[in-house]
């Protein structure tokens, strides 16, 4: 997310089980993993990485509640208070006919709110330049990356040794 470039050391694995055991080893050796990339969501990886549960869904609920309130209150204000119109012999405040639209507004706010929040957190706004370690990460390779911008040579060789021990197919260094 920071504008400065980072020096990254990363290893590529060919199998998800290999990746999982490598992450376990890294955590046991207190190696500070920058990120893990995989072409598909690997079940059970989050607890191994020590990631806490996502809080995005809590925001989703809040956005949804805002959407429901907004939709319902706006319709009520517009159709019952500001400019009352009689539709098809229904009351001025026809609650049942508001419900589908309230539901749609809930879904809309929830979906858009979560999407925008997610993109903002990940630093993915329009015009941003993608920082791609390796194209094959989105194809068939699993990757563990370490941030080595300010690392000493001893730490870097420790990482390299770790990759070798855990069976990484390739090890590269890249500045992104």
């Amino acid at each position: 997310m920071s504008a400065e470039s980072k020096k990254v050391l990363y290893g590529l694995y060919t199998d998800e089980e290999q990746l999982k055991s490598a992450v376990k080893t890294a955590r046991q050796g207190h190696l500070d993993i920058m990120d893990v990339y995989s072409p598909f969501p690997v079940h059970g990886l989050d607890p191994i990485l020590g990631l806490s549960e996502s809080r995005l869904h809590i925001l989703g609920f809040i956005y949804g509640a805002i959407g429901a309130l907004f939709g319902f209150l706006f319709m009520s204000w517009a159709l019952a208070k500001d400019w009352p119109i009689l539709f098809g012999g229904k009351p001025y405040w026809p609650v049942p006919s508001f419900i589908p639209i309230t539901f749609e507004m809930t879904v809309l706010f929830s979906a858009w709110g979560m999407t925008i929040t997610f993109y903002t957190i990940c630093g993915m706004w329009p015009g941003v330049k993608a920082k791609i370690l390796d194209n094959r990460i989105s194809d068939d390779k699993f990757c563990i990356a370490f941030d080595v911008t300010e690392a000493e040579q001893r730490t870097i060789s420790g990482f390299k040794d770790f990759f070798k021990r855990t069976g990484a197919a390739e090890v590269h260094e890249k500045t992104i």
Partner: protein
Amino acid sequence: MNLNTQFVFDSKLKRNLMIGMAVGALCLAWSAVGDDAFYTRFWTNYLHNAVFFTGIAFTAMFFLSGQITAFAGWMIVIKRLWEAMSQFMLVGIFLLLVVVIGVWGHLHHLYHWNTPGITDPSSPIYDKIIAGKSGFLNPIFFTVGTVGFLAIWYFWAYKLRQNSLAQDKYETPSFDYYKRERKWAASFLPLGGFLSTVFLWQLIMSIDTHWYSTMFAWYSTISLFLGGLALFIVLILYLQSKGYLEYVTREHLHDLGKYLFGISIFWTYLWFDQFMLIWYGNIGEETIYFKERMDNYPVLFWGNLVLNFVVPFFVLMRNDTKRKAGTMFFAALLVFLGHWLDFFYMIKPGARIAAIEAMEHLEGGHHSGLKSDAKDLSAAPEAGEMPRVLAGVSAPVAEQGHKGGEQHAQPKEKAPAGNAESRAADHEKTSHEENAHAETQDAHAQHTGEHGEEHGHHEEASRGFLLGYTLPGFQEIGVLIGFLSLFLFFFFRQLERAPLLPLRDPFLEESLHHTTGVYIDGEESEHDHH
């Protein structure tokens, strides 16, 4: 972990269920000896529970077939439980046979279309609308559409069960049986899907004979399915508390919880659709169904929505609540009772009106297509001869008849408009004030007071809710316990006949290691145990 678990139906459980069944039989008998018109309370209680538990068995079969057809592997560890539940359809055939015999022998007046002479143009009680529906609503079609369809379904359920038991004899996991199983399961889906609509139209929707709703079959089938699913979750947790099903993890529970959550929302969608289409369309013969229920059964009407939507929606929304046995037990129990109450709500108001109309016919009353006219009965001098309970119940609606009287004076084409206004006003009243029912009662008391009639029934009416019709009373709850015990007795009998785990199922390993991939903070990992 010992995988070869054999369920033992111990004598203590047997005794408890026997006691439950005895309670049910007593309560059923109690509601039969009560002072009631045409034994309506007895018959509605019987029909309600017979349809509910038979329907649960059907939806268990339907769900299982759907899972098998979709190559689902996760549910293999609980497959035998679905199978055992679906076998209850055999008992259901006999339970519903009693209702069918009642139709042929005119033993009950649950169905207005079954009144003798109602389709005969020369009869004083001739009803043109019902006569038009008599091609569908007649005893022959009723027999075919209830026990006939049930027999077909049971045949499929039986075949699927036999096939599943046969696989236990294989030496190694085999796909032979699985191909056969898929044929039975896939062919059951259209069979169950299409026939269940007719099944429920006949048994439940035709109680309100003049009324119809195209959403009804969906809505009531989903209600049955949720009732069954909730009971299923409760049973899994019960069996686990007894030391069985230790291989059913919170991952399986989570997926069942997702079904309970998602389909509860689907139920709400159907419930609301049915309501809104009728509310918006505003056709008198359709709207009367909801007007009756919102005015006279507000607790049932709103309670239904709270138990079946608000509770599962907010309780089961989060991931972690679906993975906790305690929360799931609580939510599933409430949803089970909620859907039982949903059927109570579908059956009781209509059956009460059908009984009142039958009473009117019996007394040689005039014909009227409008239900509100029937309610004038309690205001008529002959009302004194009416059985106590029914007179009391019909009293609150009599006020409607009074209101409706003005409409009758208007030209016919104007009637719906007048109707709409009063309904809209009533609707607001009900949504604003919970005690709309009480108001109606008061208004009624005034109305009858003006006319200076005999006051015997009005005490009954002013008491508010009448147990057995507006709310379940002791008898209803007793009958529920009885039928539930019968269902569970049969379920456990089926369960002990086969190992709880189909050890030769090719999908067994997948099911044992099933994971939803969800990680909850602070939850100990179960994956390492396998």
